């Protein structure tokens, strides 16, 4: 990918998202949710989206509202059900949104496979369960394994802690979660960070996401420690 661009707003960073696009959204519960970028997606207007994200929105957070407004055709996730996932629950029960339920480790490994150029892989996870029904399987070294395929995306929306001038990223604590793999699996990776620091300010040994994976960065002042609104949501 060519060098990262630094945008002045989340909407500018987001750029064009086509109807029907596959959008990965980072975060595990509130930790690491790119709240401002999902708000921008709400504003931008694309619909018929396939959203790949561990959860399916909490309360009235931007992802929940994206679902509520009928903009999401399909969710690919491991844990849509939350105490406050009422918008997803309603959309799912009414048949408005399709669900592909994926074990969390398969979700992570399939996203990583997309970024790493792996065509498919065998894993024991899910064998013999309803989530592996209809999938190819074989016994390898005495263990029954299911064939799983990569999950690619058109756009990944991710939150990191800091970016430098070439787009290298570091994250913060368990907010790291899906960010580093999602940026590798999308044709375009858009990142909101708490702070942009000068190139050279990040320790090259401690960079988690090399800038090669990052296409657009927007600095959202005070977006660390859930100050983007994530803290207001029940866990």
């Amino acid at each position, binding site marked *: 990918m060519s060098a990262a661009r630094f945008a002045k707003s989340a909407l500018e960073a987001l750029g064009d998202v086509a109807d029907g696009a596959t959008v990965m959204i980072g975060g*595990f*519960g*509130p*930790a*690491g949710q790119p709240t401002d970028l999902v708000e921008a997606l709400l504003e931008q207007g694309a619909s018929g989206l396939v959203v790949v994200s*561990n959860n399916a929105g909490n309360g009235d957070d931007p992802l929940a509202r994206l679902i509520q407004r009928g903009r999401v055709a399909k969710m690919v996730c*491991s*844990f*849509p*059900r939350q105490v406050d*996932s009422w918008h*997803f*629950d309603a959309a*799912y*029960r009414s048949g408005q949104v399709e*669900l592909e*339920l*994926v*074990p*969390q*480790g*398969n*979700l*992570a*490994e399939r*996203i*990583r496979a997309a970024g790493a150029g792996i065509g498919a892989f065998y*894993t*024991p*996870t*899910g*064998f*013999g*369960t*309803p*989530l592996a029904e209809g999938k190819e399987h074989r016994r390898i070294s005495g263990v*029954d394994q299911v064939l799983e395929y990569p999950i690619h995306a058109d756009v990944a929306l991710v939150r990191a802690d800091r970016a430098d001038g070439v787009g290298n990223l570091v*994250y*913060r*604590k*368990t*907010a*790291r*979660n*899906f*960010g*580093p*793999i999602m940026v590798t699996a999308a044709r375009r990776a858009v990142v909101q960070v708490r702070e942009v620091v000068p190139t050279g300010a990040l320790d090259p040994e401690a960079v*988690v996401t090399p800038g090669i994976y990052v296409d657009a960065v927007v600095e959202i002042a005070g977006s*660390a*420690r*859930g100050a983007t609104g*994530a*803290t207001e949501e029940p*866990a």
Partner: protein
Amino acid sequence: MTATDTSGPHTSGRRAPLTKAEIAARVAADIPAGSYVNLGIGLPTLVADHLATGRGITLHTENGMLGMGPSPEPDDVDPDLVNAGKIPVTELPGASYFHQADSFAMMRGGHIDVCVLGAFQVSTSGDLANWSTGAPDAVPAVGGAMDLAIGARRTVVMMTLLTKDSRPKLVERCTLPLTGVGCVSRIYTELAVIDVGIDGARVVELFGTTHGELEDMLGLKLGRTR
């Protein structure tokens, strides 16, 4: 580590059933010093309170951390630092963070010594059902359950032995959607510790019941360890 003389399981039969905290302590007592452990959401989180410091036991949380500490004081809550149940936690010295694929590689690659999970049903052969009640209108959710069930070196279950309407959770064959096949090696309940697996169910320890009463209650023929 557990009682292996034949008198053990049987003479303990007249002790009282365990409280949840006591079950957690019993699970903790079986975890070797120096182990890396993952505690599933729900009941198993209670086990943490019984893992004495100084035994070098390290907690993994599959959302991307080793060296997880207890809940923070209210003023120290950090929304970027949560466990797999999305509950705020803390960081112990020696902690490390990693992304989801690395975290599940750690689990799926067999590096976690012990995983303690809750369950709706466990079969005598060690099948686990803990992610879906099978209710037709339920919104399904699986999270890391399937990876945890089969990835750890040793997967054990902590649960009540009966459902709220008194049906056994240890069964000949699970009727609920499976989480994993033959993955559970032991269950810890208020009435008994029972090994499960290819050799069937074998009672390890009893609390406030007898072997015969337990068999009647479960409608199962149970073996004895050793």
